[in-house]
């Protein structure tokens, strides 16, 4: 087996797609986000459009750890695959979550362009949640309910976005701290082993 050339197995399976390390990373993170997205879709909601948005935790964490490009991949895969699995693909629900995701990614891009230190997890989560809500609100207004009465809901929806944005910001912060700690622990262990 070990002496066999690699192209023998290639001939059997036909085409092999070369995957990069980044592809694997995106796939793993997207799978995690999709799982959260689906679990969250089962939760009851007091008002249409109000959801904790825990899947955005992944978006923000990925944005901080791996940059905007990876965050776009993970988020778009999450919205697309999540909606196909739930069965809301191209339905109003999908349109709302898609437009919200696009709006929050645009805001994250702007945030990554800020000079200086830039916002941390809480600021990023908050601004992304607010952008998400604005994006889906205007989509709802333009496509589904073009009535000025809808604006009466905006203060409530935005309050929910702010509250959940801050909560998911706190989650992202503790998640990153945890990851940092584990990374330090493993490097410390490795250093000890090398000694």
């Amino acid at each position, binding site marked *: 087996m070990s002496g066999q050339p690699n192209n023998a197995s290639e001939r059997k399976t036909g085409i092999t797609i070369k995957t990069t390390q980044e592809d694997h990373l995106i796939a793993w993170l997207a799978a995690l986000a999709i799982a959260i997205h689906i679990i969250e879709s089962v939760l009851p909601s007091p008002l249409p459009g109000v959801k904790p948005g825990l899947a955005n935790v992944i978006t923000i964490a990925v944005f901080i750890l791996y940059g905007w490009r990876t965050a776009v991949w993970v988020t778009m895969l999450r919205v697309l695959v999540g909606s196909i699995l739930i069965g809301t693909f191209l339905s109003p629900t999908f349109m709302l979550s898609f437009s919200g995701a696009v709006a929050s990614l645009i805001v994250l891009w702007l945030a990554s362009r800020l000079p200086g230190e830039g*916002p941390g997890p809480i600021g990023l989560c*908050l601004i992304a949640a*607010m952008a998400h809500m604005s994006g889906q609100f205007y989509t709802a207004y333009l496509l589904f309910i073009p009535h000025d009465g809808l604006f009466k809901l905006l203060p409530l929806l935005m309050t929910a976005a702010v509250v959940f944005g*801050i909560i998911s910001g706190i989650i992202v912060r503790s998640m990153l701290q945890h990851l940092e700690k584990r990374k330090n622990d493993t490097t410390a262990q490795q250093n000890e082993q090398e000694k």
Partner: protein
Amino acid sequence: MTRADYCIVLFAALLLPYLYISQWTGDEAGINATIMNGSETTEVSLAHDHTLEIDGALGTSIIKIKDGKIRFAASPCRGKQCIHSGWLEHAGEFAACLPNRISIAVLGEEPRFDSIIF
């Protein structure tokens, strides 16, 4: 928390009260009202208080305008539904005295839809 974080939190903290105030208060007060008497329509301003007497199909209806509001004060009809409608002040509000063929409606800055049905 970085400085940008505080700016974003401050922005959110300012945006929310602004949204509540701008969306939940100050329902557009009517500026004018139309009075329809049979097929003829007259427009009146609600800016100054006065009383109108309008001769309809049955008799004279008295319409009062006060503090930017308008109402039927008296009517020769039997049901007095028009009087029970009370003061009208928001754009789009409407009262009618069908027996006397008189109706009043408060107009906003621009005419609004009664409803939209898909």
